[in-house]
């Protein structure tokens, strides 16, 4: 069985428990920003129609707040499924529908891999550069710097982190 088939089987096992009560969608704080309701994502996945959900904004808009998962009568890990959909989409070579949000998560993740801790200042700068919007949140930067809440200098590397992470690099660069 390939990775993808395995992933699909696991997704089916979880989503097929759903009986479409819609509590996830009604309790979602960002549902009005989504292009397809969370309970419909679960429905489509349970029908084996993952292809239909790989190209939606919803998994990217999801704030991973878990309001839905807590309300789900069948204990379905809905944010977890959103994350798997995001991974599946990229494995299928589908460009993230919300590239602006994807770029932030990617910038953040790459920074973690650099030294084991994040350098908030660099993430903000790099994220803006990648978006091509150098002045996004520009009002915040100086305010934060003045209060010494953002540091120019990166944190020290966590002892042995780079050596440790090397083993897994192939996977994360995909």
């Amino acid at each position, binding site marked *: 069985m390939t990775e993808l088939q395995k992933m699909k089987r696991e997704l089916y096992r979880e989503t097929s428990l759903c009986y479409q009560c819609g509590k996830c969608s009604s309790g979602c704080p960002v549902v009005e920003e989504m292009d397809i309701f969370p309970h419909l994502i679960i429905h489509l996945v349970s029908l084996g129609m993952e292809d239909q959900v790989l190209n939606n904004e919803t998994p990217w808009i999801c704030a991973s707040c*878990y309001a839905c998962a807590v309300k789900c009568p069948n204990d379905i890990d809905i944010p977890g499924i959103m994350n798997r959909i995001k991974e599946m989409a990229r494995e299928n070579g589908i460009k993230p529908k919300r590239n602006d949000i994807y770029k932030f998560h990617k910038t953040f993740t790459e920074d973690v891999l650099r030294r084991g801790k994040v350098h908030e200042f660099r993430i903000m700068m790099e994220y803006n550069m990648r978006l091509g919007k150098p002045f996004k949140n520009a009002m915040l930067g100086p305010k934060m710097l003045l209060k010494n809440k*953002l540091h120019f200098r990166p944190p020290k590397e966590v002892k042995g982190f780079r050596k440790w992470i090397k083993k897994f690099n192939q996977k994360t660069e995909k």
Partner: protein
Amino acid sequence: MNIDEIAIYPGCSLETSSSHYLQSIRTVFSVLQIPFREIVDWNCCGATSVKSIDQHLNLLLSHKNLALAEKQGIRELVVPCASCYFRLTGAEYELNNNEKLLEQINSESDLPYRGEVRVRNILDFFVNVAGLELIKKNVKNPLNGLTVACYYGCLNTRVPLEKAFDTREYPMSMDNIVKALGAGVVNWSYKTDCCGASLFVTVGSIAEKLVGKVLKDASLRGVDCITVSCPMCQTNLDTKQGSVRKKYSIDHPLPVTFITQLMGLAFGCSPGDLGFGKNFVSLGTEFKARFFSSS
């Protein structure tokens, strides 16, 4: 429990953007005479971002932290940040309940973990380990007359049920701490509503809407301040409050303090030792006159 087996996992933001949280924790720990110990060589928990990119890596990062804690003889890992807590406690739960997975990750990561570390939320720690009695005993400057809205945010309580230390929909642990300090609390329905988390950076308009709802409700209830235990919540509610208030016509500024900052004030610590200089919205003048003049 042996007090030497307790350590703090600070997380990235407590070292930079929310260093005032860590500072106030240190101060409060010293008043309560709890030794302040940090886990050594910890790494980032991955937050929501790593989970969005690579779920396996996310688990590896938390596993590494847990394995390190275990090796350092830590049995209780106290986590102040809600997001770090959520990742670490989730990993603890997943690894403890899936032997095969634990074995696989252990060998893959080359770090043996036996599942002997208990991850604890800082609110859980204050209420159930330190105890409200100890907190009450140390109050020198009761916060009488102050009305507080306790805001828990999402991830403090939405952990697997078996790991939950408080109810998920209407938690009370922070409220009970605030009451022990002599202040009043309000019943409100935004306790566990989302502040937008990283949408604050990516799609500011969504986060502002969510923050606006929380602030509006708190202000209509006439609270003096909102108190939180999550650095992300504090940043989102505090940093852009000026523009959010204008947009959602909220007349009064609402200070957003960390629970440990309030504890410190009640314990008679100086505001400087509690990092108040790093909060954007400062406490009201009346309140300041009462607590800040002596220092």
